[in-house]
């Protein structure tokens, strides 16, 4: 086999460029569709919103603990993690309830399913389209050499075993596009929200258990904080600055 295959220009015109363009357009379409679908049903449960705000307040307290005197910090800490009526203290029975309620809530389940589907369906359809139309020929040459073990993965439609592994089929061009266009999407779509599926999966799995576990996590975090008074000589410093300003 010759070392340098000469490939038809028609392949470039009708395979590489259309496939990339289609994937970019599908990504943009998916972004807009998810934005439209998200704004339709958004009535958050007031209890959940309240819990979320409590968590934010506790987190702010933890972050800025060193800027308030020790006594006030301790007072606030007790307010949050007090055994009887502290805001972060949730007895075990109630915790289970929140989880079960979230999962059986039909709106929430529908939302999650819709988001998952809007991620998976375009990918599956595009992959099937690529396989149907663009299989059985060499599509591109990747500029760096790979070992023989990648041959079965990258050269799927090509049945000649002596062709250099750098010459790949269009399926691998599809996968290359899938990973490489993520950066492009983050540039043209603002924040890369609808197109990074791994991040999405992690958010999905963490969402159902969020409220009760994060409350106890915040409580533990607050208990751990060591208060170190960061502004000990503040009055002297303020005096020095004022002096400099006045004189």
């Amino acid at each position, binding site marked *: 086999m010759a070392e340098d295959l000469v490939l038809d220009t028609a392949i470039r015109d009708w395979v590489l460029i259309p496939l990339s363009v289609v994937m970019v357009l599908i990504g943009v379409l998916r972004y807009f569709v998810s934005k439209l679908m998200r704004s339709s049903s958004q009535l958050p449960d007031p209890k959940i919103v309240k819990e979320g705000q409590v968590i934010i307040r506790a987190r702010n307290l933890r972050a800025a603990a060193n800027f308030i005197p020790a006594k006030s910090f301790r007072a606030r800490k007790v307010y949050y993690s007090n055994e009887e009526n502290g805001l972060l203290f949730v007895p075990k029975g109630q915790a289970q309830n929140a989880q079960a309620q979230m999962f059986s809530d039909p709106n929430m389940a529908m939302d999650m399913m819709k988001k998952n589907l809007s991620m998976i369906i375009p990918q599956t359809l595009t992959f099937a389209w690529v396989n149907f139309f663009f299989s059985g020929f060499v599509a591109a040459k990747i500029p760096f050499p790979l070992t023989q073990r990648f041959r079965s993965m990258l050269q799927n439609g090509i049945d000649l075993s002596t062709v250099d592994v750098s010459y790949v089929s269009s399926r691998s061009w599809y996968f290359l596009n899938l990973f490489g266009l993520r950066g*492009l999407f983050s540039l043209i779509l603002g924040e890369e929200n609808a197109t990074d599926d791994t991040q999405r999966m992690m958010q999905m799995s963490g969402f159902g258990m969020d409220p009760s576990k994060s409350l106890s996590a915040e409580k533990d975090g607050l208990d751990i904080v060591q208060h170190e008074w960061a502004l000990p000589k503040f009055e002297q410093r303020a005096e020095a600055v004022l002096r400099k300003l006045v004189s």
Partner: protein
Amino acid sequence: MAGRVDSDKVKEKASDNLNDLPTFHAENMQNNAKVMYYSRTFMSIIGGVVAGILGLTGLMGFVFYFLIMGITSVGLAAKAGFSIHSYFDSWNKILLDGFFGGLMSFVLFWTFAYDIVHIF
């Protein structure tokens, strides 16, 4: 050489005026990190196209990628006026953060440009 991104390089002062306390404003830190991410992504795409047009193959291409990332780091440091500590946590953050994140985009555009120019 590859062009520079000057459009959205708005970096905000992350640390406050008290000279003894290294405190950082979270929102500004996040904005700085976002600017860095965009810069690196953009440079890796441009670098990929340049590498393809130049006809670099194999190891040379990856060396070129690291060169581009290094230039991006130097550029970001210069934009921050080399006083890193008032904008970022540490030197490591501005030099090494997101170093490999642009690799996939680089390879995609490298393959694309190389094929269009040299093979077809």
